[in-house]
C-alpha cells in the first residue's frame, strides 16, 4: 500500500529553557491510501499539535513529514500552501465555513483557489454536495444550515480537490451523536471508495466504528495502536465482500 503520509520522529517543543513544553515527542506514523486512522487521547495529549504538523500548518521542532513522497521540511510557505491545496483536505471541529458564502460556494473554494473557473468549480461543488445529500441546500448560507449539514459542506470542501489525505479535527464534537455518526460514516465510506487516507483526531470513541486503525496518544507520545471496526460497518467494504 502506497503511503499517503509518513511522519518520522515528529517533535514539537513550545517555549525554551525552563519553560519548554514538549507537546509531541518523537512520533512516527505511516498512513497509506484508503487507510482511516483515528488518533485518540485526553485533552492536552498533543493530538491537535500532531494534526497541525501532519497538515503542514505547523513546522516541527525536529523530525519530518513526507506527504505523497515530498519532504515538507524542504518546502517554502507558498509551496506548502500549494501542497495543502492539492494533496490535503481539512475538516474542523467548528466547521469553519465562510459565513458570507453559500454552501455551494464554500465547497467550491478549493477548486477556485486551484485555478478552476468559477462556473466549473460551482458545477463540481454541486455534484459533490449532491453526493453528500445536500442537493437541496446549495444556495443556503451557513447560518441557515444545521450542524450536520455544515459539517457535510465541510466534507465536500475537503474532498473538492480530490486530496490524497483528509485531516479531521474533532469532527463530531459540535454534532449530536446520531448526526456525528452519519457524517463520519459518509466521509469514511467516500474516502474508502475513493482510496483516500483519513486521519481523525477525536475524543469520541464511537468513531472507532468508522476507523481502520485506532492510535492512542498520551503526553505527546503514541502509546497504543489497535484495529477499528471500519470493515464491519463500511458499505463499500460490504459491497466488495459480496
Amino acid at each position, binding site marked *: 500500500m502506497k503511503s499517503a503520509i509518513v511522519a518520522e520522529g515528529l517533535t514539537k517543543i513550545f517555549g525554551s529553557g525552563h519553560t519548554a513544553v514538549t507537546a509531541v515527542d518523537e512520533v512516527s506514523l505511516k498512513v497509506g491510501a484508503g487507510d482511516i486512522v483515528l488518533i485518540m487521547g485526553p485533552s492536552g495529549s498533543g493530538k*491537535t499539535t500532531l494534526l497541525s504538523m501532519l497538515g503542514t500548518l505547523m513546522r516541527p521542532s525536529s523530525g519530518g513529514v513526507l506527504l505523497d513522497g515530498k519532504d515538507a521540511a524542504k518546502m517554502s*510557505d*507558498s509551496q506548502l*500552501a500549494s501542497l495543502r491545496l492539492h494533496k490535503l*483536505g481539512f475538516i474542523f471541529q467548528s466547521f469553519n465555513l*465562510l*459565513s458570507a458564502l453559500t454552501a455551494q460556494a464554500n465547497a467550491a473554494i478549493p477548486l477556485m*483557489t486551484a485555478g478552476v473557473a468559477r462556473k466549473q468549480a460551482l458545477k463540481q461543488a454541486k455534484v459533490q454536495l449532491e453526493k453528500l445529500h445536500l442537493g437541496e441546500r446549495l444556495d443556503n448560507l451557513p447560518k441557515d444550515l444545521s450542524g450536520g449539514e455544515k459539517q457535510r459542506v465541510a466534507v465536500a*470542501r475537503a474532498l473538492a480537490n480530490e486530496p490524497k489525505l483528509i485531516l479531521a*479535527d474533532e469532527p463530531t464534537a459540535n454534532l449530536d451523536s446520531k448526526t456525528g455518526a452519519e457524517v463520519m460514516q459518509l466521509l469514511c465510506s467516500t474516502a474508502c471508495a475513493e482510496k483516500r487516507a483519513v486521519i481523525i483526531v477525536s475524543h469520541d470513541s464511537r468513531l472507532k466504528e468508522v476507523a481502520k486503525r485506532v492510535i492512542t496518544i498520551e503526553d505527546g507520545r503514541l502509546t497504543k495502536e489497535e484495529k477499528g471496526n471500519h470493515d464491519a460497518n463500511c458499505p463499500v467494504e460490504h459491497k466488495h465482500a459480496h
Partner: protein
Amino acid sequence: MVLIMVLTGLYRGWNDKMGQYIRSVPADIWVVQDGTEDMFHTPSVLPLSYEATISGLNGVEDVRPFSGRRVAFHHRGHDVNMYLVAYDKDNNSGKPARIVAGKPVPGEGEIIVDKISAKTKEIKINDALDIAGQKFKVVGLSEGGDVVTFSFAFINRGDANRVFRLPDSTNYYTVLLTEGTDTPTAISDIKGAIPSVDAVTKQNFIDNNTKLIRETFLPVILVLLIIGVVVGTAVIGLTIFTSVTEKIREYGVLKAIGMSNRQLYGVVIKQSMTAGLIGFVIGSTIAMVLQLTLGSWVPQFVSQINALDVVGIFGLTIAMSVLASYLPIRRITHIDPAEVFKS
C-alpha cells in the same frame, strides 16, 4: 472623495473665472506699462499716443486702448468691489463678454454690472450706484465677468475718463495681428518701438492674472487635497482592516486549506478597491450634484470638474485603495493557519 472632487472642481473653476473676462477680449497681445504683470495688483498707465506707434508696426492689424480700475463702494449694506472698464462702443473696446438683461451699451451716467454681483450684492436694474463720487444708474446685466472676489462692470468712455482721471492716457492696449504674423516678433517690435512698455501674449496675460489663484489658492488646495487623500486612505484602510480583523478566522481557514499569501492579498486588494470605487462613484455623484446645484445658491461656489480630473481622481482612488491595503495585508501575513484548529 467628495472633498477631493469639490476641491479640484473649485480650483479649476476659480482659475477659469479669473481669466474668463480677459479670455473674451479680442486680442493677440496685451501691451502694459513695463513692470506691470496683471490687471489687479500692478497698475499700468500708458499715453494714448502709443496707439499710433503700435499701429504703425509691421503685422499689426488693430490696436485698441483698454482702460479699467478697481473701485469699492457700499450698496444696500454690502461692500462691493468692482473692476470698472471703459466701454468704447465706437472702437468696440472694453465690451462686456455677454449681456443677459437690459441695455447692451451704457450711456452717460449708466453702468452694466455682472449678474453674479447683482445677485450677491442685491443690485437691481435702475438702482443708483455711488462710485468714486459719481452716480451711476444700473441699466444692464452681463455675465462672464465675475472674478469671485469682485466683478467687471462697464461704463462709457466719457464717464471712465472722469472716474479714472487719466486724461490722454489708458491702462493697456490690446493688439490684434494680421494672419500669419509671428507673435514673438511682433512683441519684440512693440518693445523695441516703445522701450517703457512690456508686451505679452494673451495667454501669458491670462496666466499672469490667474497666477494669484495658482500661487495662493493652489498650495491651500494641495494641503487640503493631501488631507483628503490621507483621510480617504485611512478610511478605506480602517474599513478593510476592521473587516479583516472581524473575519480573521475565515482568512486563517483560507490559508489552512491552501490559499497562498498572494491570493489572500488579492482578496484584500479587491475589497479595498471595491470600497474605494464605491467611494469614488458616490463622491463623484455628490460632487457633480453640488457642482450643478450649489452654484445657483452660492455664486462663489464656482466648480468645474473636467473629464481629465475625473480620470486623475479615479487613478488616485486606485492608488489610495492599494495603499490602504497595506495594514490589512500585514495583518493577514501574520495569521497562523494552525489557529483554525482552535475551536
